[in-house]
């Protein structure tokens, strides 16, 4: 009997190890709380919406940075290249391109952009080839982000160091245009 219990416990432990690994690798694909699902609940594709402050912008700490505001836009490169742009200036902005699973593929801030302007194009390598053949005039100053993805998310964050700049930053972020363009 004792040998049998020991056998069962040992099998259970090995099973626990297997279950641990299975859950770990299934989580990224199965999680109902991931960023994409939550954003889908609040806005349509290509609709710029406030990226909720409870979603830990700064990391696994639990609380978002109170000096930051953020907007997100979901896109699908099957509709054409995604163009994210906004005229004007704020003290600081940064942008990140995520795939559907929330992996950060590319990030930049206002210092790496031409003249500090937000003008970003996300496209697949195939679309990049087409774009090189026949460049679009309105995209000549844009930064091109080549990403081998279909659906994805762009997040733009703005820094509001004090109460008076909070309004400017939120106006700036909410007027960002996020559109699909076909050449």
């Amino acid at each position, binding site marked *: 009997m004792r040998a049998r219990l020991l056998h069962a416990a040992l099998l259970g432990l*090995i099973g626990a190890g297997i279950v641990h690994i299975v859950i770990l690798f299934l*989580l990224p694909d199965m999680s109902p709380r991931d960023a994409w699902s939550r954003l889908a609940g609040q806005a349509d594709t290509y609709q710029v919406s406030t990226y909720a402050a409870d979603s830990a912008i700064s*990391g696994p700490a639990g609380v978002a940075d109170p*000096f930051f505001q953020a907007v997100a836009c979901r896109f699908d490169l099957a509709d054409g290249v995604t163009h994210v742009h906004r005229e004007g200036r704020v003290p*600081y902005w*940064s942008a990140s391109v995520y795939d559907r699973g929330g*992996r950060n593929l590319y990030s930049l801030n206002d210092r790496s952009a031409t003249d500090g302007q937000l003008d970003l194009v996300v496209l697949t390598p195939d679309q990049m080839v087409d774009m090189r053949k026949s460049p679009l005039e309105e995209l000549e100053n844009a930064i091109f982000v080549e990403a081998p993805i279909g659906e994805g998310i762009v997040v733009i964050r703005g820094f509001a160091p004090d109460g008076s700049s909070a309004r400017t930053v939120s106006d700036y972020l909410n007027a960002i245009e996020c559109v699909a363009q076909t050449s």
Partner: protein
Amino acid sequence: MLKTALTVLLTLSLAIGGGAASVWYVLAGQSGTGALTIGSWTAFPKIGAPDADPYSKARVSREGVLALGSAEGVAFTAVEDSTGRPLRLECNYRIEGIAPPARFWTLFAERRGSASMGVTETGRLSALNSQGVVRRSDNTFAVTVARSAMSGNWLGVSGAGPMAVVLTVYDSTVAAGADLAEASMPEIVPLGCEQASPDTSKDEVVSDAR
């Protein structure tokens, strides 16, 4: 027959329960794979990156985080002071030293495990940023974390219980590069704790360190 059923049940519950519990335990922890620790501060610089380890990936999707990219910044969280004791809202601390080179940084305090931002007793947010912090001539700074107002740079908190402090550097070379492990982070020096009642005056601060 019953014995067989029971042993099978034991094996299965051990496997499923143990497997699920161990994943939860690892993901809920502050340390673990992918963590980088400098003094009291822990960061997950690779979190959200395509080449992150499976634990970081699972953390990202479980919490719905869209993590900061390397061109954006990196967040350091501290839950212990420099002597290794847990940070508490009812205790005073001096965060002192130099932040990693960055365009700017922000510093905020929160009750550990709560989903909302910490506030002072008058309702201001428990947060500072480098543009509002006075620095010494050698570029170092000192911020006092306390419930009652302090002269100098004051990070006000309220309530009691375990606390976490988050220092985030933005547009920083350390976020992008490999020298992250050598970044200099400020020290969190404990200054003693107030009594548990919220209306304790400053005079009753018990100085058990320094």
